[in-house]
Structure formats: C-alpha cells, structure tokens
C-alpha cells in the first residue's frame, strides 16, 4: 500500500462577515486548492465536507456544497468534530485513499459564523459541552479554557504577561498574512491599559486579547494516493503521522487541568506513526483558540516540558527565527477561527511552509511540520504530521 499525499491546498480570506452564502464561501477555498493541485474537478472521486452545525440554517451541507462545486455524482458526506472538523476530515480522507476506495479526495471545511451574534455564538459553542449538566450554569468556550489557564498559572507560575506575549506573536504574523481577519499589531501595553478593548475581562483570567477572532471562512485540502500524487504534483507533501483522541465532555470526568489529555494522546500516536520525536518538527500550527491553548500545546506536543511553555515564548523560540516556529501565519488568534475551516487552513499553512511557498511567513527550509487541532475544550484532539521528500 502506497503513501498518501496532499497535492493541493486552498482557503478563502478569513473575514468578519462574508458577503455570500455557505456554498459560495466553500467555492473560494475549493477553487484555490483545485488550481494549486493542477487537477480537474472531475478528477476528485469523493468529497468530505466539514463544519460545526447551527451557525447557518442548512441541514446536511455536504449535499448543497457538492452540487455547487460540481462534485456530483461522486459520494460526499459530512464530518463534524467541532473546531477540529477538517482535521478529522483529513483523517477520514486518508483512510478512504489508503484503503484504495478512492484515489483523490477533497476535504472541504467551511463556517459562516456571522449569521448570528457573538453572544449567540458563545451559546452555540457552549452547547458543544454537556448541555444537560454544564450548559445550564452558563458556560462558554472562553470560560472553560479560562479554568485551564487558572490551573496552569497556579501550578506553574505562568503569568498573564506570558499569555499576552502569545497574542503579540500571533499579531506579528497576522499583519503579514493577507488571508487573516485581524491585521493589526498588538502590544503588551494594550493589555495593561484599562481603556484598551484588548484588556477587557471576559472570563478570569482571560481577557478579550486572549481570545481568537470569530470569522467566516473556508478551506480545502486535496488528498491523493501515491500514483496520482506523482502524476499531478511536483512537490507532494506526505501524510506521515495521524493521531486522534477524545476526552470526557463533562469536565468532571477529567484528571488534567494544566494541559489537554487529548492533545498528548494524539501527539503520541502521530509521533509514533511518523517515527519521529518532537525535536524533529521544524514548523507547527497549533490550536490557539485562546492564548492559554497555545501555551498548553507547547507542553502537550513535547516542545517544552510541562510548566516550561512560558520559557519558549519569553525567549521567542516560537517566532519564525526560533527553535520551533509556531503559528507564524497569525494562528486562530489573528488569522481567525472559522470553526470548520480552521484545520484545513492550518494544514494549508504547513503544506505551503514545506513547499517553501509561505512568502513573508516562510521559515528556513522546514522538512517536517505538525498540525495540532482541537475540538471543543479538549474534547476532540487531532495531531497531523506532514513531511516533504
């Protein structure tokens, strides 16, 4: 059985409010990926459509999106694991291709969040937790991650300034990523200025500046078997490792509050499958839905020991020139986080990095890249390791 490659990637610009419907939004990432892969739409033998439900009114979005993209009569279906939906879609596409059932599969992620208000969006995301036993207390994603931040700070001495440094880094790269929703600089001063919106309290200890930007967006990843990859692609990027894990939805079922058990488990699987150790990773995209999430990712992925993530950001080792560049495309914090499109966008960034095509965000000569994509609050964890020849 041959290897499985990514031969094309695309994404729409991530924007506050997309002036079109979900099918038109999906078209943007899809078109870029098709052109990137140099294939015809009819070369795709199946599609996997990924998003989180209830942001728009369409039920079973795979059907309308496949129709709009000209993907009939090939099979299509919907894959959902909240914010990690399109990494889960990649996992499914890998197995469809590896099994020999299909030769080229498109993983299409999308989310149009702007049809509802921010408070409605918090309620929707909150209902990605346990609606029977947790949501009636008024939960939302920032508050769950805030509980992890509180525990991490208490145990390891991580500071609010350490968290702010992660936001500052994200904004450094968001400014040079033309697809990012937030293109402005962020400074530490903004967090200490009570008049600045960035310092506004959300859920203690997290502030507005610690939270990612909601966005509308789409992404697309074209996955192919080795034979097709060699026909179509001069620079195929190979899927070397896949890891995936779950944790109890209800926080009462969890033991760890200073890291995400799903990320640790998924990373261990992915490293083992790829046959590498964390120090071999040259560039990474991690799920920084909140600043604390990136801090925990450093530790969960083995880039730092537990409690030492703060040293990486203080010494700027996760900047582009550092030992392990992380989220040098702006991350979810600045590039934006259109739930179902996020994983595909992270994969796109790593593929472009490995092909040497990341423009002003390019890190020096990476060979192996990693994507860490989390759904819910450490509910679903996916880690993907990619490599070039």
């Amino acid at each position, binding site marked *: 059985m041959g290897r499985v490659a990514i031969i094309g990637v695309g994404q729409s610009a991530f924007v506050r409010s997309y002036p079109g419907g979900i099918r038109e939004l999906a078209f943007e990432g899809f078109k870029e990926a098709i052109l990137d892969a140099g294939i015809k739409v009819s070369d795709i033998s199946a599609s996997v459509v990924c998003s989180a439900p209830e942001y728009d009114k369409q039920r079973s979005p795979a059907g309308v999106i496949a129709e709009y993209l000209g993907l009939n009569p090939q099979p299509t279906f919907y894959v959902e694991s909240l914010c990690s939906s399109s990494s889960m879609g990649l996992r499914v596409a890998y197995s469809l291709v590896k099994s020999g059932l299909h030769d080229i599969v498109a993983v299409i992620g999308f989310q149009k969040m702007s049809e509802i208000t921010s*408070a409605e969006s918090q309620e929707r995301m909150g209902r990605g937790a*346990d*609606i*029977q036993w947790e949501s009636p207390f008024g939960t939302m994603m920032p508050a769950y991650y805030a*509980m992890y931040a509180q*525990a991490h700070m208490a145990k390891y001495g991580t500071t609010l300034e350490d968290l702010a440094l992660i936001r500052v880094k994200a904004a450094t790269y968001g400014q040079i990523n033309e697809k990012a929703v937030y293109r402005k600089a962020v400074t530490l001063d903004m967090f200490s200025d009570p008049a600045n919106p960035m310092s506004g309290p959300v*859920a*203690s200890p997290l502030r507005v500046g610690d939270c990612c930007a909601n966005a509308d967006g789409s992404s697309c990843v074209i996955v192919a078997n080795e034979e097709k990859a060699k026909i179509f692609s001069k620079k195929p990027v190979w899927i070397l490792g896949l890891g995936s894990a779950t944790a109890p939805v209800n926080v*009462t079922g969890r033991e760890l509050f200073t890291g995400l058990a799903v990320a640790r488990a998924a990373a261990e699987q992915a490293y083992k499958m790829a046959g590498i150790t964390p120090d071999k990773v040259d560039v990474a995209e991690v799920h920084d839905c909140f600043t604390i999430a990136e801090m925990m990712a450093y530790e969960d992925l083995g880039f730092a020991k537990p409690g030492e993530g703060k040293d990486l950001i203080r010494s700027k080792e996760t900047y582009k020139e550092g030992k392990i560049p992380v989220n040098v495309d702006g991350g979810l914090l600045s590039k934006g986080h259109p739930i179902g499109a996020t994983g595909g966008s992270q994969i796109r960034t790593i593929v472009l990095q490995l092909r040497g095509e990341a423009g002003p965000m390019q890190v020096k000569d990476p060979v192996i890249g990693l994507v860490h994509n989390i759904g819910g609050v450490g509910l679903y964890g996916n880690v993907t390791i990619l490599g070039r020849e």
Partner: protein
Amino acid sequence: MDDRFKRFGTVSFTAVTKTNDFISHLEAGKVTGTRCRVCNKLFFPPRADCFFCLSSDMEWFPVSGKGRLITYSTLRYAPVGFEKDIPYTIAVVDFGEYKVFGRIAKDIPEDKISIGMELEVKVNELPNGQLNYVFCLPRL
C-alpha cells in the same frame, strides 16, 4: 410527560431524562449523584446507566462533605440567556470519588477564592424560580 429537568439551571436545554429525580432531590434541598448497585461505582453527574458493568440498577446518594477547588473562572461576559447572571463564577470541585461542576456562591468574593480551598455544595434557587446548586464555604 415527565419534564422535571427543565427546571435545572438558569436556562435548561434538557427536559426529559431518566435522571429527573435529581430535580425532585434539589426541591427537597439535596444534591445527589447515582451509585451502581452492581459494581458500586459512584457517578456525578448522575447517570441512569453504568458504563463499567452495563447495569442500569442505580440508587441515589447525597453529595456531602467538603471538596477541594480544582479550578474556576469568573465570567464577565455571558452567553445568550445568562446576561442577568453576570458576574458569576464556574468551578470544578473534587470530592474524592467524584468531581462536581457548578457555580461558586455569589457571597464569596472573587479575591477570597483560591485553588485548593475547601467547599461544600448546597441547593440554590435562582431569581427566575429555576434551581441549581452552588459551592459555599464549609459551615464551622
């Protein structure tokens, strides 16, 4: 239709569950979990079915005694439906054999909350007539 569970929390998203007696226990001033009669495993939140031994033979037990605060967060921005409650503090408290997720009582100021502190649980009636439970300082 037994829809007692709609009374749980500021906004309930569930009405019908096999654990509806939990609400009657709240009305009687008790916070309860379930214990599997076959394998003795304790569950909080309560469940109707045991995933260890697949039994559905459960009995109720009261959540009592002191737990330790694992972590918490005070919300100053709320999801739709909870705006009137802010600020409020959510928390996870470890009672040894099980953990409990809920809110910390409003009469404990935020600067008096610290990880590791001892807390008890008690039933709380919300201004809109709904019921939940909150963590409070242990009675001396």
